[in-house]
């Protein structure tokens, strides 16, 4: 399941919904990204997340479908917020549930790695020098490429 929304999400409720009543699930791995108050050495106040409505949903669905094709998953979830966020706010939640923990961990990691390089979101940070578009990180590209070489 994917969701793109301005409002916050309830982490516990979202994860509970994912596993409730499915007794084939042995492991649930989740990752939450939060707004830090530091980026590099610069203090960050609020940030604004812009996205590409339509393509965002399409990209997230493709990432989710690819994870489900690669691992035997019982449930997956991607929730991403857009709009204005403050330090400490939740930005993104990805989760994967499977019979065994390795698939849950790998799929969850895959979801966030591909989201970081494929889903059309852009962060605009409020810094002491004014608003600044966040630069893409090479390490994110490397994290994505890691999944493309045979294991």
């Amino acid at each position, binding site marked *: 399941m994917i969701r793109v929304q301005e409002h916050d999400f309830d982490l516990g409720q979202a994860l509970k919904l994912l596993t409730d009543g499915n007794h084939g699930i042995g492991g649930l791995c989740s990752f939450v*990204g939060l707004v830090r108050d530091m980026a590099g050495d610069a203090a960050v106040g609020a940030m604004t*997340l*812009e*996205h*590409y409505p*339509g*393509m965002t949903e*399409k*990209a997230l669905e493709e990432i989710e479908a690819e994870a489900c094709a690669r691992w035997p998953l019982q449930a997956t979830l991607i929730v*991403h917020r857009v709009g204005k966020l403050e330090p400490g706010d939740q*930005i*993104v939640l990805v989760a994967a549930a499977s019979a065994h923990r390795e698939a849950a961990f790998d799929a969850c990691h895959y979801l*966030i790695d591909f*989201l*970081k*390089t*494929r*889903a*059309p*979101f*852009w*962060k*605009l940070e409020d810094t002491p020098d004014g608003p600044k*578009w*966040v*630069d*893409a990180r090479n390490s994110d590209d490397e994290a994505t490429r890691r999944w493309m070489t045979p294991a």
Partner: protein
Amino acid sequence: MVKILYFAWVRERTGTASEDVALPDGIASVKDLVEWQRGRGDGFAEAFAEGDLVRCAVNQSHVALDHPVKDGDEIAFFPPVTGG
């Protein structure tokens, strides 16, 4: 006609979020379109400057520079993504 969308600093530099334009003659690929954009004035020249990293999606899928463009396409230009 094609619909062209601009996001993040590409939107800011071009001063344009969305436009419907007639594809000029001879423009068959994303690469052609990028070169045409560079001739549209200062903001566009800056947004599509050599060495910058503008990415493109056609019909909501990431594409490379040699991807064809044709009438009716939705074409988007944007910086490398930074969500998550």
